[in-house]
């Protein structure tokens, strides 16, 4: 049985509609008008234990609303939701024991008392057996480097330190399921890195199931093996990261470093139909569809006309890919077009 099973999960919010200005406010006071907004629109989602899922989508797509339903904070409008055999909002406290939550924008730590006291509080709140608490605390302190600020209150530590401490606090009770809502927001590269490594180690060593929302695509590549993309409350992609890249990241760019500027671009262009060539003196870039050409074919088409000193190939960035999805330039629900394109369509030199 999957750890998370959502079928037709829907959340509708009622928003007050108010006309601008004082008159609008007055009108609203007497005759309230509401508009329904579908934040999450009939989503089906099934997550097996041990998976690490990136839950992506532009702002306002319904990510946080979904997470809040999964954690039992929000009551779904319709649909069914079972997390580890429980309906989260009906058994909120029981569900809370099985999960760890990190909200990147809010801390769970007590502002005024030392970090270690917050951890002790978590020990009592989650009724963690002393042995388990001690072992986990020691391990996480080591992995996350918490020792230097353990005795400072949460209000006096940096954002990076706070996030590391929050992560520790969310995992002290060995939750089966870890929800991370933008865990690396506003952090520097080094801290991001250590946090990602830590989460990855939880997935691999403790079999913790992770679901994270993020706008940072580094989080996805380092932590997750599955990507779910939501937009306008609907899931528009659900699959593993490699497949996403294979199916949709078709553009590659080869950069050639030249000994001399090419005498003419025309013959090169003629040899590479449907490719985008850019040349500024000593560098030449060719953007091509990798289902149409192999990198070697591009090189073979270029080499006769110029002297190449060096070259490199740019892999597609997941970031670009997802940006395209957000912008509607890529539709992910048409996988057959990608499948058809796997044969080289135009023979070289044709």
């Amino acid at each position, binding site marked *: 049985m999957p750890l998370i099973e959502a079928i037709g999960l829907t959340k509708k919010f009622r928003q007050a509609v108010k006309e601008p200005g004082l008159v609008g406010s007055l009108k609203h006071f007497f005759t309230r008008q509401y508009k329904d907004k579908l934040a999450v629109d009939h989503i089906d989602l099934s997550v097996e234990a041990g998976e690490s899922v990136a839950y992506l989508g532009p702002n306002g797509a319904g990510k946080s609303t979904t997470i809040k339903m999964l954690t*039992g904070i929000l*009551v779904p409008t319709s649909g069914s939701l079972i997390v580890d055999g429980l309906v989260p909002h009906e058994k909120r*406290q*029981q569900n809370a024991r099985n999960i760890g939550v990190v909200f990147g924008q*809010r801390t769970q730590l007590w502002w005024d008392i030392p970090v270690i006291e917050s951890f002790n*509080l978590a020990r*009592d*709140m989650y009724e963690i057996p002393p042995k388990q608490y001690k072992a986990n605390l020691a391990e996480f302190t080591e992995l996350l480097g918490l020792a230097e600020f353990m005795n400072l209150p949460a209000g006096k530590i940096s954002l990076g330190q706070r996030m590391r401490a929050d992560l520790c606090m969310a995992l002290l009770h060995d939750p089966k399921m870890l929800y991370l809502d933008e865990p690396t927001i506003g952090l520097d590269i080094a801290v991001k890195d250590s946090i990602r490594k830590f989460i990855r180690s939880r997935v691999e060593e403790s079999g913790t199931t992770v679901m994270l929302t993020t706008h940072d695509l580094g989080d996805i590549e380092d932590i997750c093996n599955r990507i779910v993309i939501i937009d306008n409350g609907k899931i528009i992609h659900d699959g593993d990261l490699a497949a996403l890249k294979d199916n949709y990241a078709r553009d590659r760019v080869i950069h050639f470093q030249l000994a001399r500027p090419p005498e003419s671009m025309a013959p090169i262009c003629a040899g590479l139909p449907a490719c985008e060539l850019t040349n500024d003196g000593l560098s030449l870039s060719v953007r091509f569809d990798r289902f149409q050409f192999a990198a070697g074919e591009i090189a073979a088409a270029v080499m006769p006309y110029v002297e190449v000193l060096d070259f490199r190939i740019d892999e597609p960035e997941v970031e670009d890919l997802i940006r395209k999805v957000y912008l509607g330039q890529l539709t992910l629900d048409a996988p057959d077009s990608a499948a058809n394109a796997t044969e080289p369509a135009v023979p070289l030199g044709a």
Partner: protein
Amino acid sequence: MHLRKYAAIAKASLEVIFVYRASFALNMVGTVFYVVAMFYLWQTIFLGSPGALGGFTWPEMKAYLLVAFLLNSLMTWFDEWVMGRDVREGRVAVDLARPIDYQTKRFAEAVGPIPFELFSALLVGSVVVFVFGGIALPTDPAHFALFIVSVALATLLKFSIIYCVSMTAFWTTGMTGIVVGRVAIQNLFSGALIPLVFFPDWLRAIAAVLPFQGLVSTPALTYLGKMDGPTTALMLGIQAVWAFGLLLFGRLLWRGAVKAVTINGG
């Protein structure tokens, strides 16, 4: 009940007081000035009319003022503002994702500092006693025992009232005005400023149907043994009904508010 987790919250809440010790001390100084001013005010009144006033002798009045001071010194750190912050900053969500009951958590937070508040109030109280002297003591140990019960009920009642009022945070953002308003009404109708016997009849009638008299008047009159047996029992009963009734009402308000937020959106 998982007492241990709430005990841990209470302990953490007590620790916070020590973090803000300067603020706590200043607050205390303010209360001391207030209580001293009240003593001189009433001293002047009693000097003007020797003997009993409204049934109070001067030593009894002093005892009344001290009891009022003691009760006002408890649970000073718990007010509506925190709830406002929790709602505004979305911390309610954080608490909802934890295996705790919100009201019990807030109660633990409110109760945590009480040992220290009690200690400070007794310290200040004994200095005042030393300066002014001649405080009326309970004539009967039974009164004193009932007084302790009444203080406990008053403390619970204070929590319940503030908890209920703090639920307005779900509908308004300016909690400061709410705190000030509640404190003003509470000071008047609890008898903390003036014993209720000095009120005109109509105002006393209003005070009688409000929960606030249980905060100061009931415990203070119990201490002084001003009420006969049945009246004391009745007043303690009323105090208990308000304390537990509002506790329950607060739970319902919270449930309603959370439902409104989690079902319809904030």
